[in-house]
């Protein structure tokens, strides 16, 4: 049996076992083994890529492997955290006990469809799986007992699915294009990439624009970012982490694959300008929304929009080095965002609010979450020695070679974003009062992932593993940048 089939068989086993198990602990353990199996799939594929499956509709290549790793790691930490967090949610009456099974089933399904999306070779198959991840994400947002969650979830579905329909139009156009150029229509990424030069550039650019609209909604690019702040702040923290770290990558991944095809033709400058425009717009909108933000989780959410903007700019530059650092930024951003969302999750359970005004004596009551928030905040702003510093700095260096005025503009916006983080941070951590708030003892299973992630973010900031270097170089050359 091949690796992907083995993974699929195992994931079905996971779903069945979750259905049969009775306790929260058991379902959590099963889901954890599922996340580990994704990392195992990635590790196994590393030596054997590229591998084709099911009529070449699925392909595991270097880029898929890299995304498997990120997905597996983020799901693993989020799930460790979710186990204890869930008990607290049930205790508080925010989640009904009978819905816990549904929660784990949806998380497992979300992981399966994410892995299948990254393993798809066919653009349409990818579209279908991405759409399915949207549904399960929406479901996970809506699972908490509150009217606001339903609203956030509906908003998320409508904006994302509406945009995804445009991507579908783009897919139809690409199919028609390949049919007229090659005689036989194809939507396979490897075939599209190999034959890109025979496609008409104008037509390809139009298809790319449609596809870009769809996938950019998935990664929270402005102006499609509107549902994300609500979704992030209402969802359980483990789910926010997954949306921000994994779903965002899913969108950027789709854009990257399609962009790689367009790069082969003379439509490259048009596509690059499109990415640049939306990238700038995202950073701009995110920065100005962050400035007056008093809700911690929403601030972190807008920062995701800012970072997808930065990644789009990196792609727009389009040099092999820029793409290399965008890929590294995907990992760096995912890990750092996980630190931030998991820390704010503990604060949220302590104060039952994300509002800066309600957070009092944070250092005394929740020292670890406070440190997580401060270090995570420093890391996300790109302060050395954390991992984002390397990727952010390198993308900006590439931007300097591309256009100096643009670099200055982006730097100014990033500075403003830092100011937003600083001002909210000072407000939260200097807010002391003599109140008798009962301390919420966050269990080890909630604090351990934060500590582990901080260490990871720090270590990757000072040490660049040669394995990652080799993998990223392989991806860049596979995508023909």
């Amino acid at each position, binding site marked *: 049996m091949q690796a992907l089939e083995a993974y699929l068989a195992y994931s079905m086993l996971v779903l069945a076992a979750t259905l049969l198990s009775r306790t929260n602990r058991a379902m959590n353990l099963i889901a954890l083994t599922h996340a580990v199996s994704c990392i195992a799939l990635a590790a196994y594929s590393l030596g054997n890529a590229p591998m084709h499956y099911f009529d070449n509709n699925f392909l595991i290549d270097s880029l898929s492997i890299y995304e498997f790793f990120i997905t597996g790691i983020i799901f693993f930490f989020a799930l460790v955290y979710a186990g204890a967090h869930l008990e607290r949610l049930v205790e508080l009456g925010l989640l009904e006990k009978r819905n816990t099974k549904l929660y784990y089933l949806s998380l497992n399904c979300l992981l399966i469809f994410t892995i299948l999306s990254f393993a798809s070779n066919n653009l*349409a198959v990818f*579209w*279908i799986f991405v*759409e*399915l991840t949207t*549904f399960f994400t*929406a*479901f996970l947002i*809506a*699972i908490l*007992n*509150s*009217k606001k969650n*339903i609203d956030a*979830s*509906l908003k998320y*579905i*409508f904006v994302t*699915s*509406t945009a995804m*329909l*445009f991507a*579908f*139009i783009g*897919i*139809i*156009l690409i*199919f*028609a*294009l390949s*049919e*007229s150029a090659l005689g036989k*229509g194809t*939507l396979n990424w490897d075939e599209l990439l190999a034959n890109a030069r025979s496609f*008409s550039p*104008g*037509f390809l650019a*139009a298809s790319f624009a449609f596809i870009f609209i769809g996938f950019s909604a998935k990664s929270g690019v402005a102006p499609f970012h509107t549902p994300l702040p609500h979704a992030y702040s209402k969802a359980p923290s483990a789910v926010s982490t997954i949306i921000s770290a994994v779903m965002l990558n899913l969108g950027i991944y789709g854009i990257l694959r399609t962009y790689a095809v367009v790069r082969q033709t003379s439509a490259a400058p048009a596509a690059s300008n499109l990415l640049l425009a939306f990238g700038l717009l995202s950073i701009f909108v995110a920065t100005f929304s962050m400035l007056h933000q008093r809700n911690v989780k929403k601030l972190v959410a807008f920062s995701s929009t800012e970072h997808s903007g930065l990644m789009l700019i990196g792609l727009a530059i389009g040099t092999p080095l820029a793409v290399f650092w965008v890929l590294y930024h995907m990992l760096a951003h995912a890990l750092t965002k996980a630190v931030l969302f998991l820390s704010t999750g503990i604060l949220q359970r302590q104060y039952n609010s994300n509002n800066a005004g309600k957070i009092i004596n944070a250092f005394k009551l929740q020292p670890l979450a406070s440190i997580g928030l401060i270090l995570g905040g420093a890391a996300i702003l790109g302060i050395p020695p954390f991992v984002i510093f390397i990727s952010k700095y390198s993308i900006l260096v590439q931007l300097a070679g591309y256009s100096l005025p643009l670099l200055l503009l982006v730097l100014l916006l990033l500075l403003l974003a830092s100011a937003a983080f600083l001002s909210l941070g000072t407000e939260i951590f200097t807010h002391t009062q003599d109140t008798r708030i009962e301390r919420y003892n966050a269990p080890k299973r909630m604090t351990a992932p934060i500590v582990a992630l901080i260490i990871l973010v720090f270590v990757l900031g000072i040490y660049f593993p040669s394995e990652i270097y080799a993998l990223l170089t392989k991806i860049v050359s596979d995508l023909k940048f």
Partner: protein
Amino acid sequence: MITAALAESLTQALVVLVLISGAFIVTRKDLLSLVSTYQMQSLLLAGVALSLYSVDQSPTLLYLAGLTLVSKVLLIPYIIKRIQRKINISRDMEFHYVSPIASIFITIILILLVYGAFSNILKELALSNLFYLGAVFGISLTLMGMLITFSRKKVITKIIGYLTMENGVLLFSLFITELPFIIEVLILVDLFMIVLLATILSIGMDSSVEAYQERFHQLHIEDLQEKLHLHRKHRGES
């Protein structure tokens, strides 16, 4: 057997009717008639697929017509009507950003824009006039659906907007190219979405009812108990 020319003019008429049904949805307030219009639109779409089938005899088109009939004409409207009964609202009075008259104008502008933009792109595919018309109308219908999704407030109307967009994509793909299996899956994804929305909404309705009852408990019952208590006390004293 109908002739090719007849089939072509029939298709043309059906496509125009589909677009008119889109315009109708943009302006309607009454939720029940929105659902029926959507039903009618899907029926017309199945008709388009059938009349295209009569020309090129491709089994995919026949299959697609059948699938549209079962899911979009029967199943989805049925589920929507059930959700509607559960939520119990009959009119979407809140036109969020644009009034019906304005939305008609926006629609016309959208169609013209699409026509202009696509005349360049689609030239390269060397489509016949009929196919060009179908493709442009498909995109226009998609944009009209988007207008509905973003300009209305009620969830049911938004759903209808999304489904209209989806019909637009279907119309577009019918005329552009013959896709292998993807279109069918699109319809299935659609069904999945409706079921999911129905579930989320029913959870939402339940939880809001609960919240209401909770508040009711806090406000009235305690009040009543206090009154009762006072009353007894009063009687005891006297």
